[in-house]
């Protein structure tokens, strides 16, 4: 892929998947690269900025583009003294929120972009930029309540329903503003950022070999995916190859994370459609899985299982057999429950056609992961860009074309059964040997990436190293950034009472996007 102007410089980029790093020194190269990426079928995966004024008095932008067979990071250093840049939102709609995030954290503004705060609500002053190097770590500010200008819909009989940030169930906080006529939704506008807790700044206070603990807590339900992505970035930077046994155990735990979340969602989706039986049974199966985790891995949620160089704990001699029995029992139950779901006409009536997102819209918006696959976008890193041990597992892709709640339910069923198959393969072929190797400090001023297909979709960790085993900057990206805007479209024309069901069918992370 060539830029529209003079050639860009390419650098190697250590990662667990094929990755390139391109330098775009000129502004038209930055936008030219974006255009050629778009034309080449790339998705904008992440956008982050770094304050490099201590090195060369410049800020830098980094855009990560996901292609079917590789990841490309385009880097653009803003001219000295400049804090505005050409936005990418006209090409990639997701860039709108990403750019607002960059503006809130570093004070760099996309030209012509939405100027409303996204991550900054009123908890810190407008002139304070948490990720600038001259912003003191000790800074604390009183909250100043600021009204958020939601976009109003005018018209006869239109009224607004504000929901959140504290929701009625045991879920995360976010604000939804519905504009409705009668029960029909004309517009939904999301306001997120409530759980922003300064993850990126916190990373800079941790050593390279402890960053995985924070990565695991970017979005707790994707702890394995994020901690693996972090470790993959660090291992790439240090040239470490993880022992076979360790990478198999990582995949085993990642698939168990996928199964656990899908089981929880399948139960909740039944419940939101008035089928409480589903919640009872799927939550029981999930609990069985968590208890097996506790017995075998020492934790119901193995947040700190993936560590740089391998895994923190080995399986006992008996464990593989016990896990094998557990997944066999689980598979039997899931197959039976799937038949019940499929044959329950009342349930299917609620699922079908609800929250439909067609292929074209999903592509335009850059949908990722599970909802993308339910709208006919057949992308899964485990299939397209398999990293060890997935390069030897031949993961089967789950896709549907309908793009409705029913399709997202079917994807979950398919993926649970596929993950069970993968768990079995991993357990049967489990290599003997070490579970960890020593990881040295990475060289300073380098960038490494980790890209892992979590249960929601691809999670990315971009690690910029500092001297002496420190973290200069670490950016984590959850696919919820891409998928939250999908919900605003999927709900259109549906009725308000179907929102919980449609929302649950996406089940996006607030914490993962808020950071």
């Amino acid at each position, binding site marked *: 892929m060539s830029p529209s102007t003079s050639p860009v410089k390419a650098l190697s980029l250590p990662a667990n998947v094929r990755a390139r790093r391109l330098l775009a020194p000129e502004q038209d190269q930055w936008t030219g690269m974006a255009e050629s990426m778009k034309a080449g079928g790339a998705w904008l995966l992440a956008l982050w900025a770094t304050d490099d004024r201590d090195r060369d008095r410049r800020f830098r932008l980094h855009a990560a583009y996901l292609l079917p067979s590789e990841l490309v990071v385009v880097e653009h250093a803003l001219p000295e003294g400049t804090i505005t840049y050409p936005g990418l939102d006209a090409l990639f709609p997701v860039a709108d929120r990403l750019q607002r995030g960059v503006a809130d954290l570093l004070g760099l503004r996309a030209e012509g972009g939405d100027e409303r705060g996204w991550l900054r609500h009123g908890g810190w002053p407008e002139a*304070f930029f948490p990720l600038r190097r001259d912003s003191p770590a000790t800074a604390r500010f009183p909250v100043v309540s600021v009204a958020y200008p939601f976009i109003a819909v005018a018209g006869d009989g239109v009224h607004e329903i504000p929901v959140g940030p504290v929701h009625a169930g045991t879920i995360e906080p976010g604000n939804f503003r519905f504009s409705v006529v009668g029960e029909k939704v004309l517009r939904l506008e999301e306001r997120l950022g409530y759980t922003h807790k300064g993850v990126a700044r916190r990373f800079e206070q941790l050593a390279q070999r402890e960053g995985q603990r924070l990565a695991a807590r970017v979005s707790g339900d994707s702890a394995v995916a994020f901690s693996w992505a972090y470790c993959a970035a660090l291992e790439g930077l240090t040239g470490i190859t993880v022992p076979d046994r360790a990478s198999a155990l990582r995949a085993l735990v990642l698939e168990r994370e996928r199964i656990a979340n899908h089981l929880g969602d399948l139960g909740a989706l039944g419940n939101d459609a008035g089928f409480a039986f589903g919640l009872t049974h799927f939550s029981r199966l999930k609990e069985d899985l968590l208890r097996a985790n506790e017995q075998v891995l020492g934790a119901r949620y193995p947040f700190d299982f993936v560590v740089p160089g391998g895994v923190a704990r080995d399986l006992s001699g008996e464990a593989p057999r016990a896990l094998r029995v557990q997944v066999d029992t689980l598979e039997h139950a899931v197959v039976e429950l799937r038949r019940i779901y499929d044959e329950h006409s009342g349930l299917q009536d609620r699922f079908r056609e609800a929250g439909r997102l067609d292929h074209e819209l999903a592509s335009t918006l850059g949908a990722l992961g599970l909802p993308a696959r339910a709208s006919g976008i057949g992308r899964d890193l485990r299939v397209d860009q398999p990293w060890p041990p997935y390069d030897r597992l031949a993961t089967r892709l789950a896709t549907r074309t309908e793009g409705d709640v029913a399709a997202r339910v079917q994807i979950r069923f398919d993926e649970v059964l596929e993950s069970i198959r993968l768990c079995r393969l991993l357990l049967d072929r489990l290599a003997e040997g070490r579970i960890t190797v020593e990881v040295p400090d990475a060289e300073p001023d380098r960038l490494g990436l980790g890209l892992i297909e979590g249960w929601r979709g691809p999670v990315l960790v971009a690690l910029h190293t500092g001297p002496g085993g420190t973290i200069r900057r670490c950016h984590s990206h959850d696919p919820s950034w891409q998928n939250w805007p999908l919900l605003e479209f999927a709900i259109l024309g549906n009725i308000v009472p179907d929102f919980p069901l449609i929302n649950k069918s996406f089940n996006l992370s607030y914490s993962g996007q808020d950071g």
Partner: protein
Amino acid sequence: MLDVLQRIRRTGIVSEPLPSAEVVEREREQLQASLLAVLGRALCIRHVDAGSCNGCELEIQALNNPYYNLEGAGIRFVASPRHADVLLVTGPVSVNMEEALLRTYGATPDPKLVVAVGDCGTCGGIFGESYASRGSVSKVIPVDITVPGCPPSPLAILKGILGATSRPAR
């Protein structure tokens, strides 16, 4: 429909008590007796996520699975703070949730109890105190009991709730 009901009935019997179910059952009965002694009625809980990573939410949700049978013990989650006796607060209190947490606390009728759940709610956890995080629930509202853990198990959360109810409410 008959077919579905038959499957439901057959699947329903699949449920078998796990070895640890006995322990859960004992805790549950203890809890129920204690609640009746203190309140003489069901205990209503309102959960507030004040910047959690969502790990604690997973374990709070697990309390509603059939193994723990929380409602059977006389505890239920309610949709509004107006109906709550107890606030179950997770997260290190992100500054963006501070106002919502204070308002939720204010909307909860007295007497009320606050249980801070997880390492973050207890002491800020890995996020600590920063420009974006207050560093624990007790820095923002009065806390009666803390349940450390990352995330704490459902049983630990259950014990925390029990611990809170055995104290005099505010």
